[in-house]
């Protein structure tokens, strides 16, 4: 990351941490600074000769500085968003340098989750680039005394063809900076035919740093004089320290002191969990000291939580009438007629994120202000929680964003960043909190455990005449309000209220479930269990009807139409319906295409082999996936091939998108094979990769083929949408190969071996 701007380099022992900050003039979408406002940090973009907006600056030597305001956790958004700026600027990518933004509300939303970085910032990035290009052209025209309309750009230079004059962006920067900033209406955007980077893509800006170990993650952040901390958290959510003994701890070489951290108030939200921190001269000493802690806990009310009875409870709730969230016709009337009815229960346990980099953060409290360095998906939330915990103004919290060693939604919750700040204040030195893998697995914000009850009546043609589906899961809002028990619209929308089938009678319900652990967003979130239930139940019905699963799925999706959500609380992932309607034709298209690409129905399958199919829209992207499996006599499951087709509208970076869908298949493989977190007396049973295994090379798909539909629709998400259809298609393939139905994840319970 040598090219990352670094205003605080002198403070670092190991260099290269990222520093960036406020803007000089805001992109129109965001509030502008008045001239008297103090900037928490200048970026190189701010300091550049020409700096028309928050995201962009051009130096007199032609260097283009672009600010990455969203976090990089492997999706390449740190590269892909600047690529949009560079394209509209007509800049030479080789002369672009990227600086990472600190948490600052002037950049707009920085919570890098929900697969919407491109969708939400595509226009802002184009506008940033087009604004600077406009000003450079104006400056050149003025200099040459020719109409601006006769000038154009050609890779980092402005040209006037009839007089054969050229001027580089660098030489024009100073003159351009004196010109007024144009209105959006005055801007001219490049036609698609002139795009250099958008739709073609680029490898990660950090690629070389990533393979040489020079990339700086949160784990690698260092400042002078820092101490290391390891925290023993209450084993049960909401537990408190009754008393503790640290005499033996303090005898460990390198240990300085122990520090109690207060338990959270009311609901956990993003507050520290509380517990006892061991402060030491190095990470190892802190870990060793922690082993000598003797703590007596008051476990609190969640001590009653056991996963097995809780699972039964969820299932019983799913069998009772719940809250109706969508209804068409009268499903009960059809069921009462005594036609053939099929029922099934599906279950997905709690899932942990298990990012390769465990939670870690460095913070320094000094003179009433905090500076933090953290691998966070959500630096503004880190500012918020630190300001609340320490009783200081949000503006007095600077949160630098390092690279993230994986995120998957876990690092949207900055509890660990707050821990570092709280400890630094108590210790009076910069403190780096390092979670162990055991801490990470035991104190996650888990993807909800969920039970789904499905019921359908089939008509003479084998198609459903009535359909009932009821889901029950402890909802994510329970981390903010412990009494929240029903799914909220933003999660019920995730593959549940938007079932794409053309059904005459449909009722969708949700039942209550109380949370006993922290529930949070995990890559594709509720789509995981909803798509699993719907797409596997569809496969079951296809077999019940004696139909080919692909043909049957197409039949259920029906003719191309736009789903009407009248009377349904369907947020559409926060996107406008006119720009992002729910078009079943696009789902149909990817489904047909994946059947063709995978050779569905055309390839012979021997004993123990089979293919499964599933289709799903999430984060506004339409995906269909075919998974091929081989199950040997020992019950070992291999995945020789995956084909997946996606329609995500305009895809800015196809190479990064393919990588996301390859990775989603591996993430899904882990869920199906072994993803399960359980609790006994409120405490999590798993601790590390031996009891929370994730897919290793031989367990991952051998080959995932990704096909991107060419589309002019506006851009949609690519980080998450690959997971849900993979999970269902994998389970359907296991049925095709073995005749065993997967209704209960993970498949360790299936008895294949």
């Amino acid at each position, binding site marked *: 990351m040598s090219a990352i701007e670094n205003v605080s380099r002198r403070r670092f*022992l*190991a260099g290269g941490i990222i520093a960036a900050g406020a803007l000089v003039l805001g992109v129109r979408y965001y509030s502008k600074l008045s001239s008297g406002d103090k900037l928490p940090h200048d970026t190189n973009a701010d300091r550049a000769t020409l700096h028309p907006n928050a995201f962009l600056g051009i130096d007199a030597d032609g260097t283009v500085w672009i600010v990455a305001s969203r976090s*990089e956790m*492997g*999706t*390449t958004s740190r590269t892909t968003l600047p690529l949009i700026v560079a394209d509209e600027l007509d800049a030479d990518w080789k002369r672009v340098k990227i600086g990472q933004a600190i948490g600052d509300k002037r950049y707009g939303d920085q919570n890098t989750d929900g697969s919407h970085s491109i969708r939400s910032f595509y226009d802002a990035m184009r506008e940033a680039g087009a604004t600077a290009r406009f000003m450079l052209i104006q400056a050149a025209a003025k200099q040459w005394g020719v109409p601006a309309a006769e000038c154009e750009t050609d890779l980092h230079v402005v040209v006037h063809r009839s007089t054969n004059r050229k001027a580089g962006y660098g030489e024009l920067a100073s003159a351009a900076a004196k010109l007024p900033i144009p209105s959006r209406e005055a801007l001219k955007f490049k036609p698609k035919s002139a795009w250099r980077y958008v739709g073609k893509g680029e490898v*990660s800006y*950090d*690629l070389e740093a*990533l*393979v*040489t*170990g*020079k990339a*700086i*993650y949160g*784990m*690698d952040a*260092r400042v002078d004089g820092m101490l290391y901390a390891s925290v023993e958290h209450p084993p049960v959510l909401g537990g408190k320290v009754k008393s503790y003994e640290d005499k033996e701890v303090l005898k460990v070489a*390198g240990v300085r002191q122990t520090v109690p951290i207060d338990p959270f108030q009311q609901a956990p939200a993003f507050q520290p969990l509380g517990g006892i921190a061991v402060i030491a001269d*190095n*990470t*190892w*000493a802190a*870990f060793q000291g922690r082993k000598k802690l003797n703590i007596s806990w008051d476990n609190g009310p969640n001590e009653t939580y056991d996963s097995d009875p809780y699972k039964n409870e969820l299932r019983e709730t799913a069998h009772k009438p719940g809250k109706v969230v969508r209804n068409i016709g009268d499903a009960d009337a059809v069921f009462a007629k005594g036609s053939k009815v099929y029922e099934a229960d599906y279950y997905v346990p709690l899932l942990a994120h*298990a*990012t*390769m*980099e*465990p939670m870690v953060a460095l913070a320094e409290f000094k003179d009433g202000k905090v500076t933090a360095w953290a691998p966070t998906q959500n630096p503004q939330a880190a500012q918020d929680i630190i300001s609340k915990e320490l009783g200081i103004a949000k503006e007095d919290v600077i949160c630098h964003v390092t*690279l*993230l*060693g*994986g*995120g*998957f939604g876990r690092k949207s919750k900055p509890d660990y960043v707050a821990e570092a700040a709280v400890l630094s204040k108590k210790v009076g030195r910069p403190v780096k909190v390092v979670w*162990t*893998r*055991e801490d990470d697995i035991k104190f996650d914000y888990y993807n909800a455990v969920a039970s789904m009850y499905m019921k359908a009546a089939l008509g003479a043609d084998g198609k459903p005449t009535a359909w009932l589906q009821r889901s029950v899961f402890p909802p994510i809002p329970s981390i903010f309000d412990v009494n929240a028990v029903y799914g909220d619209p933003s999660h019920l929308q995730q593959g549940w209220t938007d079932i794409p089938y053309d059904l005459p009678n449909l009722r969708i319900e949700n039942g209550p479930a109380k949370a006993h652990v922290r529930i949070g967003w995990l890559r594709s979130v509720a789509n995981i269990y909803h798509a699993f239930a719907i797409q596997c139940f569809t496969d079951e019905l296809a077999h019940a009807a004696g139909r080919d699963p692909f043909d049957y799925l197409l039949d259920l999706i029906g003719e191309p139409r736009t789903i009407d959500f009248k009377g349904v609380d369907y947020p559409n992932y926060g996107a406008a319906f006119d720009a992002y309607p729910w078009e079943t034709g696009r789902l149909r298209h990817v489904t047909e295409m994946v059947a063709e690409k995978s050779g569905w129905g055309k390839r012979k399958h021997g004993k123990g082999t089979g293919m499964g199919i599933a289709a799903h829209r999430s984060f506004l992207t339409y995906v269909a996936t075919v998974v091929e499996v081989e199950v040997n006599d020992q019950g070992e499951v291999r995945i020789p091939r995956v084909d997946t087709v996606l329609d995500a509208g305009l895809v800015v970076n196809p*190479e990064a998108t393919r*990588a*996301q869908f*390859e*990775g*989603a298949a*591996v*993430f899904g493989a882990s869920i199906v094979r072994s993803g399960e977190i359980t609790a006994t007396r409120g405490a999590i049973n798993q601790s*590390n*990769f*031996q009891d929370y295994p*994730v*897919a*290793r*090379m*031989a367990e*991952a*798909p*051998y*080959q*995932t083929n990704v096909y991107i539909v060419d589309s002019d629709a506006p851009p949609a998400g690519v980080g998450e949408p690959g997971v849900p259809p993979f999970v269902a298609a994998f389970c359907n393939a296991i049925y095709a190969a073995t005749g065993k139905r997967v209704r209960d994840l993970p498949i360790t319970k299936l008895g294949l071996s």
Partner: protein
Amino acid sequence: MIQLKVNGAEQSFDGDPEMPLLWYLRDVLGLTGSKFGCGVGLCGACTVHVNGQATRSCVAAMRDTAGKEVTTVEGLEKNGLHPVQKAWMQINVPQCGYCQVGQIMQAVALLSSKKKPADHEIDEAMSGNICRCGTYQRIRAAIKAAAGEMP
């Protein structure tokens, strides 16, 4: 006092002999390329070479490194990039990248002992290295690409 060589340079350590090599490299020497992932030798993010052998530095006690030669990613190649690193870039392997240094160190060790590994040999050699982003098919491709380029 423990004497060892790290990336060719003589070092001595008089701290806790039980301290794993990983924390010595990271916290004491400031060599942060090798990563902490699990602390128990299950994920491979901390992989370095000790006397040329791929070793999980998170479970290798300093006392056992006495007199040995440790190579980390920082010392993998003196001039430019190692062929395996080049292959990693050519195939565009990393996503978040956190595990990749460990993967690369493991792959270098594999290719030092096996010039043209078959699929099952790659699977086996790399089975101790987890990538949560799921870059395995590209890792396999990169190892094959590098196989012909090793010195």
